[in-house]
């Protein structure tokens, strides 16, 4: 009810909002994943490429055991070790893609939302063109044409996030650019650059940064999809690739579901954590529902 909100909102001690237990749980999981991704070579893991053939167990794949926590694949490679290594590419690509998207898309969005006019018209059209491709289709198109390295795959996914991020940044900027405090800044004689940096950015950057986690979730899933289709980083182990390996034949999936299910679990928990933490941050910063 509006009347009570008004009277309560103005008072000095507005109740401190909390992020909650779930949020910190998610953050812990993400921190763990980042740790794993950063230090995989230093961790006491089995070699992800060695074949641990064990004649006593017959032909691989071997089911999970003390020796191989997540079991092994058809070539008797350790799924646990491979899954840990997979975190590396997934998280790196996810992180760099969304960073690139935010830097480029965010800048374009803020500038076009603030200045409007022809800059806005051009950038908006470019955004619409980029958004006219279903993102996976555009990703497939581009990755198919290039040497697929960590850098290029990140760049392609970064390119894909430019338009959605740019549009959000533009909308958020426009929402503030018309506010009277911006007008007030202009009429004390502040220059555009000053206004963008001091008045607009603090208001746009904080809500946008809470969307970064959600965006990263999208990028991680996209990388997984590309990898699943065999179109992500060519050399290296990825979660999507692992899942694909365990499911490409119905027989494999039936006999040794662990090969794909453990990477699925890791991927799921990571994406869930990114989504959940991002969503909590979004409500925490009171950002209106926006879809990336």
């Amino acid at each position, binding site marked *: 009810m509006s009347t009570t909100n008004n009277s309560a909102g103005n008072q000095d001690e507005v109740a401190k909002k909390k992020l909650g237990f779930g949020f910190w749980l998610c953050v812990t999981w993400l921190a763990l994943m980042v740790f794993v991704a950063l230090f995989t070579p230093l961790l006491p893991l089995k070699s992800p490429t060695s074949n641990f053939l064990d004649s006593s167990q017959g032909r691989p794949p071997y089911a999970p055991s003390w020796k191989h926590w997540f079991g092994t694949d058809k070539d008797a490679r350790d799924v646990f070790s491979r899954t840990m290594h997979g975190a590396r590419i997934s998280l790196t690509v996810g992180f760099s893609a969304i960073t690139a998207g935010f830097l480029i898309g965010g800048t374009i969005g803020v500038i076009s939302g603030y200045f409007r006019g022809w800059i806005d018209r051009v950038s908006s*059209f470019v955004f*619409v*063109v980029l*958004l*006219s*491709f*279903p*993102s*996976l*289709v555009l990703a*497939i*198109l*581009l990755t*198919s*044409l*290039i040497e697929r390295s960590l850098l290029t795959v990140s760049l392609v996914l970064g390119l894909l996030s430019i338009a959605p991020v740019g549009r959000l940044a533009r909308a958020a900027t426009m929402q503030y650019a018309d506010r009277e405090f911006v007008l007030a800044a202009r009429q004390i004689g502040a220059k555009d650059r000053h206004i963008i940096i001091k008045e607009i950015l603090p208001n746009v950057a904080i809500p946008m940064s809470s969307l970064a986690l959600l965006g990263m*979730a999208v990028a991680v*899933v996209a990388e*997984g*999809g590309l990898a*699943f*289709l*065999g*179109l992500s980083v060519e050399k290296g182990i990825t979660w*999507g690739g692992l*899942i*694909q390996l*365990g*499911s490409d034949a*119905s027989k494999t*999936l*039936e006999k040794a*579901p662990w090969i*794909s*299910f453990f990477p*699925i679990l890791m*991927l*799921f928990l990571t*994406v*869930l954590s*990114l*989504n*959940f933490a991002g*969503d909590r941050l979004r409500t925490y910063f009171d950002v209106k*529902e926006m*879809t990336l």
Partner: protein
Amino acid sequence: MRYYVQRVALAILLLLAVSMLTFGALNVLGDPLFNILGPVAGDVNNPDSIKMIEVAKREFSLDRPLPVRYAIWLSDFVRGDFGVTFSSTGQPPVSGVISERLPRTVTLVAMAQFFAIFVSIPWALITASRAGKVSDRISTLNAFFLVAMPNFALAVILKYVFSIKLGWMPLTYVADDPLRSRLFQMILPALTIGLPVAAVYQRLLRTDIITTLQQDFILLARTKGLSRPRILLLHALRPSLFSFITVVGLNTGALIGGSIVSETVFRIPGIGSTLVESVLRNDFPVVLAIVMIVASSFVVINLLVDFAYTLIDPRVRR
């Protein structure tokens, strides 16, 4: 009227830009000759290869400048001539491959979309009217789980549970089966794509309905003595559908993307799986045609969504 004309004009402009981007990417980023001929293109010592290169260059006007090639390709494309596929077994026209496979993908995407919409609307209505209660919280958690499940992973899980373990659903798609069983075979692939999208729709629509329920006109409806279900359905739903409709349009892209994965996992020979195969085979004309068709239909769908908007919101009618 003016509005419709403007929207259509914009859509045409978009399609042009999309085609330029696609054509440009394939011709600039990749080597078109390689894309057409594969490894043969690099084999300049073999007389047979040289001959093939000659033929390809003429066939695809590769000696002409890029804009001219684009114009030729575009005029062919709008007339339905998508060129020929590059394959070891003759050169069947791309249009044939497409017309055979496109209907399957369309069916799959439509089923998924239908499913997502008709699950999410009641789901959102119920949870929004019970916002904050235990059932709503559980449903929100469920939605989170679904959204966080990438569809290629969901496909693997569904396939494992329902086809392999329980045996309720067929494992694969058989192109020669009668229509009914083919539709049945598509249920699992459609669920794979539709479920996460349904969760996305539900979360969005739920929030919008809750916002609408806080509006004064809902209070006015209450003061008239209308019952709660009536207020929900007649007063709250329609004004809450605006962003839902936009998102349905935009998510068609996600569904098409999902169909690529789903078709690959469930082995449905649609254009999604064909796209992946062609990319891996470097089959340039097929990739070009599929990307163009997908992007164009996406543009058209969003155009239709814009028009649907005017049906729901009388304020944008001009």
